[in-house]
Each structure stands twice: as C-alpha cells, then as structure tokens.
C-alpha cells in the first residue's frame, strides 16, 4: 500500500504525461485529441480528489485540462465536467490569477450574454508570473488560457474596454518576451477584427507592397469583396495564390475568399474541381475535424429544436449548444483570418440569437437579424416563413433600438445591399419614422450606383411599397426618392416590381414630381405587351386616386389600351373614364363571345390530358362587360358539363368556374339557381378532373404535377356562392348545404379557403337573422368552429372577413336593425370582442392591421361592447406599424 504522498506523486506523473501530449496536440490543432485527454484527466481526478491535500494537487495538475478542455469544446460534455470540477474545488474568485482566469472562462461560456463583474478579478502581476516560471515546468496552458479569455471578453463586446484592459495587464506584467509579443499580436488582431461585426473590415491595406503578409492580403481581399471591387479583388487573389500552398495553414482561409467571390471573378476555377480539393486537403488537417464536430453538434441541436417546434420553455441545452458552437467556430476562424468560416459561425449565431430573442430578450432579435444580414444567412425572406415570422418580432422592440438597427444596416457596404433591402422589406412600416429620411437617402444613392447591377438585381426600391402608403410624411419622402423612382421608371422591366411604388408616388407626391414621373413613364418606348400592361395598371390606378393627373395620364392610357389590343383594357378604361374614344378597339359582339367560349370548351375537352402547356383565356375577364339578361342554356350546360367532367384538366376548369360565378350575378335568377345548385353539389361531393401528367406512357404515367389548381377552383366556387347570397339567390339551399358540409368536411378543407367559407356563413347569418333567428344561431355556432380551425394559420384573413361582413356599411346597417339580444348576435359579438382583444397583440402586423380596421369601425359605430373595444383601438394607435396606426384612426372598412 502506498502512502498519500506517493499516491499524489503517482497521479501527478500521470497527469503530466497527459498534459505534455495535450499541449503537443494543441499546437498541431488536434483539438479532438486534446478534448479526449482533458476528459480523461478531469474524470480520473474526480475519483482521486477525496482529501484536501489531494484536491490541491489535483487542481494544480489539471489546470491545463480545465483550460484546454474549454478551449477545444466540441459539445457540452466537457463543459459539465469542468463545471463539476470547479464546484468540487470550491473555486470562487480569489487572489490567484490562474484560478480567476479559469472561473472567468467558465462564466463567459456559461453566460455569454450576461455582464460579468470584474471588480474582484485578480489581474496577473509581474510577481505572480515570476512564481509561475520559477519551476522548470512549462506553463503554456496559462498563455493559452489568458488568450482565450481575452478573446471571449472581446467577443461579448468587441468595442468595449474590458478586453483591452485584460490584454494590457497580461502583456505588461509578463516577463516572457515571447508571450508579451503574443499578447500584443492578439490585441492588434482583435482591434482590426472588431470591425467585422459592424459588417466592414476596418483597415485599408496597401496590397501592392511585396512585404505584405498573406494575412494582410486576405484582409485586403475581403474588404474589396465587400466593396464589390471585383477587379482589384482578382489581383489580390492572384497575389495570394503565389504565397499560399495547398498544405499550408492559411489555405482554408484563402479558399473561402475565393469561393465567395467565384461568381464575380473572371477565369476563376470551376467549383466542381475546387470544392472537392478543398475538402480533401482540409481532411488532412486535424483542425478540420474539430470544426466538423462543432458543426455537427450545432446541427443536431438545431434538428432537435426544429422537431420540437422551437418550444419556449424547454430545450435550453440545445440552444446553449448552438450558441456556443457558433461562438467557438467564430473565434477559431478569426485566429487564422478565415472570414468564410467566421461568416458561417455568424449565421448560426444570428439564427440562434433570433430564436433566443423569441423567448428572452427581444433586442436579441435585432442583434441576430444583423448577424444574418452580415453573414448573408438568408437568401430570400420570401422563401422563409419562419424568418418572416421572426422578423415580425422586431416590431415589439424598443423604437430607439429599431432605429439604431436600421442605421447600422444602412452603413453596410455594397455586398450587403440586397439583404439590407430584404430586411427593410420585412420591417417596412415598422421602420421608425425618424430614420425614414436616412433610408430614402440610402435608397437614392444605391439606385444610382453602378454596383447595383453586380448584385443580380436592377432595383432595391421595392420595399417602399409597404411604407409610402402609410407614412405620415410620404410627400417629403417621395420628394427625396424622386430621382431614384424616375430613373427606375425608365426601365420597363421594373414596372411590375415597382408597380405600387409608382402608384404611391403618383398619388401622394408633389404634383411636379408626379407629373415628371408620369411624363417619364409615358415617354418610355416599350413594345412588349407584357410590360405595357403594368404601365397601364399604374396609370389606371393613379387616374382613380389623383384627379389632377388625369389629363396627363389619359393619352397614354388610351395609347396603351390600343397597343394591348385587348378589349378588356379598352372596356376598363371606358368604364373608368367614361370616354368612348376606344370604341374602335376590336371588341367582340356578345354572340361572338359566346361562340368563342363554346369553341374554347370544346377544343380543350378534346385536348385534355395531352396538352403540356396552359392556354390563357381572356374571355373570363370580359364576360362582366356584357349583358346576360336571358338564360343561355347552351353555354351554361357546356360550362357545367366541363366543370363536372372527370377528364377535363383542372387548369382548364378554372376559366369555366370564373365564368359561371360571374353569370350568377349577370344572368336571370333561374339560371343562377341552377348554377348554384350544381356548384353546391361540387362543393359537397368534390370537384373531379385531371392533373397534368409527366408522361403519356411509361412508369411515370400515373404521376401528376401537384399544384394549387384544385384550391383555386374551390375558391372560385365559394366566390360564386357568395355572389349568389348577395344576390339573394338560392340562399336556403346554400344554407342547408353548409350546415351539412361544415361539421363533416371543413376540418379537411383547404386551410387557406376556410376564411372564405366563414365569410359566406357570416353573410348568411346577417341575411337570415331577421326571419330565422334559431337558424342564425346554429350558423353562428358553425361559424365559430370555422373560425377556430382557421385562426392558427390565417388569423388576418379571418379577422378581415368578419370585418367585411359585420362591420361594413351594409353589415353595420343590418346590425343596427336587428335585435341586439338575439342569441346568434350575443354569441358572435361577445366572442369577437375577446378575440379582437387577444389578436391585437398578435406578432403578425397583417393581423394587427385587420384588427385595427375592425376595432376602429366597431368603436366608431358604437356597437355593443364598444367600451371594451375602445382601449384596443387606443393601444393599436400606438402600434409600431404605420399601417396599423393609420387603420386605428381611419373609418371605413376597405
């Protein structure tokens, strides 16, 4: 049996053996080996440290394991081991700088967002260092530990003072000249790299000098990349290529610069060769496995969160892992100037922060969004419902923080402009009004910059469509934006994308600016119908909204209608303007329209299932312009036969359903009744038909294209039924059908169409309430069921349909005539008060907008429960979204 001293010596010897190998592995970047050795040491010591003497031996001998274990973390296991050991050693902040350093490392990794107290922290002193170097043992882990701590403190606040204070204290007190240089180099590197988090690389580098190092050239390259100066970037890449070997440590960093800029550099290597080479070369470096392990840990944590639906109160460990792996990846990347890897880590950090912000501090959402922009962590907001939902959270941040966030976005270099525009588009009318003029100035300077064409886009003005109609100073903004808007208007290709911006400018701008815009668009030559129709559309809308412009707009409208040659445009213009100058545009006689429709039905029935492209019908657009006073059995029969056919393509049926739904209101009531009954049958029993197939023969014959065509058909059916109810046609039949259909089928029905069914039911309730209160009460119950199943996915739409029926002029008039005590009414109105109160806090601005419209009208009309509704309106009048504030002060429901 050996004595206690002997035991301590034995264990010390073993730990020193592991330490030596761990330091060697650390130097070669073999982090997984270090991780393994540190775990072995800490675990073993846990069972050994049972007396005070043993504890002190163990603590001294495993400092390296605690430091290096945290440094090379690839998951949370070692973190818990370190935490366990620190607790067991009962380490609080004390007067030993090494102990304090380890405790601070742990604290910073455990709580990266918290403010850490440095008041009692023991900074290293010269005397302390002397003591450390007194023995012949190396103390490399101390250098590693202090450097890591400085990096972590810097990471939390790159422009703060604390990390500089710590770095200076280490550098000034340390007697080892080599270590002093290391601290000084670290300070220099971190000072330069701080600017990365602001989105720009902070220093101009003279890259022409032969003495410039590869790291400096890399920095220069990234700066040029951000500025979209691809010509100069190509030169720098050429210079770097002469200094970088495929086996050198800096190859990875060089590769990411090349890969990011590949599309912009002429004669760059094909990525199908370059990427596999990179993966192969990287696989020879142990550090690559550490990076891979961290990414895998992060991905696994993300998958667990996603599967669980990102719940609020649980899975904290997974969130912890995500954030920390991102942090460690970024720090790792910055040590070798691997900006590409740093961007990957930044993207993860951004996602993690946005997600954390949902459940904790909302300002994290803004920080996370900024990270995502800088890391180009999302390619298109349109494609990501999740991201859109999260950006909406920014609405609830402090106005000042949001303003600062927008200002920071505007300061980003050219390479980020598209993503800045994406975020501004999502924020839109939540952008604080006090910074809108800055945003306008940014828009103008960006639009006029040639670099915009390098960003694979022709304009970044699109996001103004969500702002100009709602802001209180739209005229001033439009004045500022006019140079950019007028310039964009000269490009017919932008008329569709910027349609609403042009309309808002014409409607709300200074008359001189509006005239200039109108004149510019009118005088732009454009032969393509595809673009002309958008100019037509812009002008016809402006014609409605701005009488002062009509004289300017009309000649162009007439010319475009002629150019388009389609009677739809001519008839629309005639209707809007009341002039008949376009009578000479070829227009069908009614008989010809009928024949053309019948021919279309017949031709398409013959071709069904074999045709591979869609033929657009224009006939459904002009049906409403003709008088259909008599029953047209032949046409209606043909249409009904086509919509009920099993062999006609769904895409063709869309035209027929549209015509039928219009004929309900245009023709005699008997005809309308017949149509309604058949539509009801289709609603109850399903619409038959065929989808496009992949092949006529072969193994894929039974496979079809999927799409939203069927949903559109049901939507048009519902529109037709709505028309019927409004026209007072077959109301009872519709009511009975819905009473049968809703309980059995609505939960299976297309979620996007349920609000439309609810609208139909609301309308029916109001129509029958006077004579059939009981039936109205039953319908009210069914409506509530529909609302409940629709709310989770379509809250804004459900609120809107309620407003459209109950709070429109017609709806209010009816409510005021009907008994306020009727059961159906009490049911509906009471439930909706509570619902509107709740939905006024919904994260979606569209929902809050719909609520604002509803409560404004409700309060103005002094309907029942108005006292409960008014506070909701008051709260919404202070909403972060301009449209919501505006709606809370407007009257009419649109």
């Amino acid at each position, binding site marked *: 049996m*050996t004595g206690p001293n002997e*035991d301590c010596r*034995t*264990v010390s*010897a*073993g*730990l020193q*053996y*592991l330490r*030596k*190998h761990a330091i060697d592995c650390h130097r070669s970047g073999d982090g997984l*080996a270090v991780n*393994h*050795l540190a775990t*072995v*040491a800490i675990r*073993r010591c846990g*069972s*050994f440290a049972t007396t005070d003497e043993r504890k002190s031996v163990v603590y001294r001998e495993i400092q390296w394991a605690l430091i290096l274990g945290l440094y090379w973390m690839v998951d949370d296991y070692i973190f818990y081991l370190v935490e366990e050991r620190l607790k067991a050693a009962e380490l609080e902040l004390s007067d030993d700088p090494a102990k304090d350093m380890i405790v601070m490392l742990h604290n910073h990794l455990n709580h990266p967002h918290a403010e850490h107290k440095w008041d009692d922290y023991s900074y290293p002193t010269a005397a302390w260092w002397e003591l450390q170097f007194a023995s012949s043992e190396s103390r490399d882990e101390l250098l590693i530990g202090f450097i890591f701590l400085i990096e972590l403190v810097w990471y939390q606040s790159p422009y703060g003072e604390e990390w500089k204070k710590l770095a200076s204290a280490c550098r000034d007190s340390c007697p080892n000249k080599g270590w002093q240089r290391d601290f000084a180099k670290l300070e220099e590197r971190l000072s330069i790299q701080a600017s990365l988090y602001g989105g720009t690389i902070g220093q101009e580098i003279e890259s022409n000098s032969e003495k410039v190092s590869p790291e400096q050239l890399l920095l220069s390259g990234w700066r040029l990349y951000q500025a979209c100066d691809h010509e100069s970037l190509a030169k720098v890449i050429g210079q770097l290529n002469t200094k970088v070997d495929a086996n050198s440590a800096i190859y990875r960093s060089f590769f990411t610069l090349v890969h990011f800029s590949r599309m912009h550099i002429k004669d760059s290597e094909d990525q199908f060769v370059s990427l596999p080479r990179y993966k192969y070369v990287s696989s020879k470096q142990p550090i690559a496995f550490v990076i891979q392990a961290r990414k895998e840990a992060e991905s696994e944590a993300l998958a667990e969160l996603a599967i669980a639906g990102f719940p609020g109160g649980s899975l904290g460990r997974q969130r912890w892992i995500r954030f920390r792996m991102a942090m460690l990846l970024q720090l790792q990347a910055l040590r070798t100037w691997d900006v590409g890897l740093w961007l990957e880590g930044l993207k993860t950090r951004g996602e993690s922060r946005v997600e954390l912000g949902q459940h904790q501090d909302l300002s994290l959402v803004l920080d996370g969004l900024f990270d995502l922009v800088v890391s180009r962590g999302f390619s298109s907001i349109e494609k990501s419902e999740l991201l859109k939902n999260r950006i909406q959270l920014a609405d609830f941040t402090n106005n000042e923080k949001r303003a600062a966030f927008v200002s920071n976005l505007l300061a980003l270099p050219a390479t980020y402009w598209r993503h800045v525009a994406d975020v501004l588009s999502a924020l839109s009318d939540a952008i604080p009004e006090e910074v809108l003029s800055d945003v306008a100035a940014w828009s103008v300077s960006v639009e006029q910059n040639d670099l915009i064409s390098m960003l694979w886009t022709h304009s970044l003005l699109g996001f103004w469509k969500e702002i100009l109609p709602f802001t209180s100073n739209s005229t001033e903004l439009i004045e500022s934006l006019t140079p950019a808007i007028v310039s964009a208007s000269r490009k017919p290709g932008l008329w569709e994308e910027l349609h609403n911006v042009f309309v808002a400018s014409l409607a709300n701008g200074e008359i001189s600016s509006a005239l200039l815009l109108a004149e510019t668009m009118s005088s732009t030559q454009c032969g393509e119908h595809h673009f002309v129709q958008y100019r037509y559309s812009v002008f016809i809308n402006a014609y409605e909204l701005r009488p002062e412009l009509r004289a300017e707009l009309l000649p162009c409208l007439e010319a475009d209608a002629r150019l388009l040659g389609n009677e739809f445009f001519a008839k629309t213009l005639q209707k809007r303007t009341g002039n008949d100058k376009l009578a000479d545009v070829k227009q069908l006689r009614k008989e010809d329209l009928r024949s053309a429709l019948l021919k279309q039905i017949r031709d398409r029935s013959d071709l069904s299932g074999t045709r591979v492209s869609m033929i657009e019908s224009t006939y459904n657009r002009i049906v409403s312009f003709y008088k259909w006073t008599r029953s047209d059995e032949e046409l209606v029969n043909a249409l009904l036969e086509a919509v009920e056919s099993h062999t006609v393509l769904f895409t063709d049926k869309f035209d027929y359903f549209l015509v039928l739904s219009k004929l309900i209101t245009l023709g005699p009531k008997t005809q309308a009744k017949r149509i309604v009954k058949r539509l009801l049958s289709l609603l109850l029993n399903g619409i038959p038909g065929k989808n496009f197939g992949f092949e006529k023969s072969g193994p894929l014959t039974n496979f079809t294209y999927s799409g939203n065509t069927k949903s559109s058909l049901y939507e048009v059916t519902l529109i037709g039924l709505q028309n019927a109810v409004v026209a007072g046609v077959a109301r009872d039949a519709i009511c009975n059908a819905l009473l049968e259909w809703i309980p059995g089928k609505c939960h299976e029905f297309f979620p996007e169409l349920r609000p439309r069914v609810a609208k139909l039911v609301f309308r029916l309730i109001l129509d029958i309430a006077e004579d059939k209160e009981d039936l109205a009460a039953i319908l009210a119950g069914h409506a509530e069921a529909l609302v409940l199943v629709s709310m989770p996915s379509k809250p804004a739409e459900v609120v809107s349909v309620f407003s459209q029926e109950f709070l429109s002029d017609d709806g209010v008039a009816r409510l005021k005539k009907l008994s306020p005590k009727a059961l159906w009414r009490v049911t509906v109105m009471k439930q909706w008060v509570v619902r509107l109160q709740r939905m006024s806090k919904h994260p979606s601005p569209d929902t809050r907008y719909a609520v604002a419209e509803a409560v404004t009208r409700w309060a103005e009309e002094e309907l029942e429960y108005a006292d409960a509704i008014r506070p909701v309106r008051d709260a919404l009048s202070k909403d972060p979204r301009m449209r919501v504030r505006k709606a809370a002060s407007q009257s009419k429901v649109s």
Partner: protein
Amino acid sequence: MISNRPLPDPNSTLHEARDFIFASSLTRRAFDSSRKNLANFVGDLLDATHRLSLACHLPEFTDHGLPHLCSLVDRISCWGLPGVGGTYLPESLAPDDAADLLVATLIHDLGMLSQNPCDLPQPYSPDLDPSQWTSRALWVRTTHVVRLPRLLPRLMLDYSKNYEEFFDPACPSNLLRAVEVAMAHQKWPWQWAADGGLDAIGRALAAVVSVADLLDEDAGRCDTTTLLQHRGGDELNRAHWMRHALTADRILITNGSISVDVKKPPGTTHLTKPIYSALRNHFRLISLYEADLRAIDAPITNINLNPSTGIPLTNTDLLKNWNALEGFDNESALTFQLLRTFMGEALKSPTRCSQETLTQLAVASLEDVDLAVLEAAQGSTEPRSPLEQTFEAIVGGVS
C-alpha cells in the same frame, strides 16, 4: 599532409556478412547440394537484403537485416545436438535439406524489408490492402510472410534469369520448399498441418528456423541505449528496444540445451515480476517445436532460465535511466509497456489466445503471468486509446 585516401566501402557490412555466412557450417553443407547456381543465388540474396535494409527499413522495427541473419545462421551452425559426440545440426542434414534450411533462414524476414503491396497474393482479401491499415509498420509485419512467394522471385530474377529454375515447380532443384519453410515461422506447429505442404523434414526445418528466430532475443539485437536516446518512437517502440536489453547474452543451443540469463532495470522490484514471467514463457515456447525437431534429432530438451522464477537479481546498466523515459514513470507503467510487447501465447492470455491454442500450450509448461496491470490499463468495458492506457498504467492502482 593531404592524401587521397580511399573512402570506406559502404558495402563493407555486406562483405563481412557474406564472408561470415559463407564460412558457416550451414552454408558449407548447403553448398554440397547438387543445386547449380546456389552459391550465386545466396550471394545475390545477401546483396538484395543489404540493399533493402539500407533503403527500406522502417524505424519502428528492430533489425531484420544482415546482422540478424548472421546471428541466426550462426545459431543454427552451432546448434549442438543432444547426446555424446558433439555433433552439430548442419552435419546431420542432407545437403539439399541444408540448402533449404539456409535459404529459408535468409528469406524468412525478407518481407519486413519491403513494403510494396504488389507482392500480395492475387487475388487477395481487401483486408490486406494497405489502404485498410492506419499503420504502415503493422501492415508490413502482418503481411510480410504472405508477400514472400512473389517478392522473392521478383527480387532475385533481377539478378539473373538463371534463377528461374529455383521457382519452377516442375524443376527438381527448385527452392519452393525453402519458401514454405520460411513462411511457416509465422504459425505454430499445430497450424502447419492445416496447410499440408510440408513433410516431416520440412516441418523439422521450419521448427529450426522458428526456434532460432525465437531465441534471437538478446541485447545484441539492437543498440538499446542509442535508440532510447535518439530515435523517435512511441512507448511500444521503446518497450521493444528495452526488452532486448533484459537478455544480456546471445543464446546458443548446446547439446540440446539453452541457458538464458535475464537481468532487470535498476531499482525495480517484485512489482515487475509479470515481465519476467512473460519472458521466461517466451523461451519456453520453443518446447512446442520439440516433436518436429526430433525428426532430425535436434530437440531442445533443457531450457535453463536464470532466474527460473521471480525477478532477476542482476541489473542491466543499459536501462539505468528507465524511469526518465516518457511513459515509463514508474514500475506499473514499465510493466504495462513491456507486457504489451509479448505475444498472447507468452502471456498465456485467455483473451488473446483461442481455447485450442491454450490447450496446445500445455506441453510448454508455461507459468501464469499476472496480467492485472495490462488489463486495468486497457479498460474492461471499452477499449482505451494508447495515450489513455499509458496514463492509466502510470497512475496504476491509485484510487
């Protein structure tokens, strides 16, 4: 005074070795064989071995070149047969048998000096492909025997087309039996029967090669001091070099007996006993060849081990600073590392030997080896990494 002194002949080792081997009784008996070109063949074979060991020797290995071959040839040449009369083994062999024995001895480790996978038998199992091995040295050691049949003709036909007859199965003077004898040294005698290629004499010759090789364990096998101080390597490499230092003197077979003196590193105690148990067992394994050696009247009936139990009393200065070596901090670590160098049979390890093997080992009267240190370091539920095993060996039984 400036003089044009001739540079030393870089091939002097080859010349000395060739002279030594050619002068041995085994070779002289072999050259009485009727095989034409045998002398040239052996000379060229030694030249090839010399070139290979200069160019291709792996640093992880101890010597498998000319010094080792000289030692084996000498041991065989001096193999004293039991009984009165002082007869030596070569004299009792027919010349053709002596020739086969000589060639087998010279080629048995040729594969250790070559690393080209083209010599693998065709077709070969994917397991043998070098790409499946993380350690080149381990691949070489594991495949050195199976590569011999293709390596040898590839090597020797470069010297002379006259040597084709030695590889022609139809030719009566071929050396294919020598190749089989050489290949047999990687297996135990009871495993030779499964291959079915060797007759009784062939088995006896194989036994001679195996025993001679087994007994080449002494300090002369490698320069332990220089290796420990100057060559890079891991703990297992160092343990191999240190093990040779424990057997101070060359072991020769005299009158059907061997005597082995074992020494210990200074300052070590009974805690290192398992090392010597394993080492004694290593020598006792020659008993497994007794039956086959009897076919040529060359059994080794006495194995004198000093000490026969326990730990040696004498120190070896070659290992005086053993505990300053990384990974050998104490006796527990020393024992662990040295035990790793022994084959499973010497350890009488039930986890590394099949039941059949353990049954066969009974004739060797092996002593039990305390494997507690080895097992504790290797881990009982999951295998540990080499660094981790060394650490556990150092901290030993401290709890």
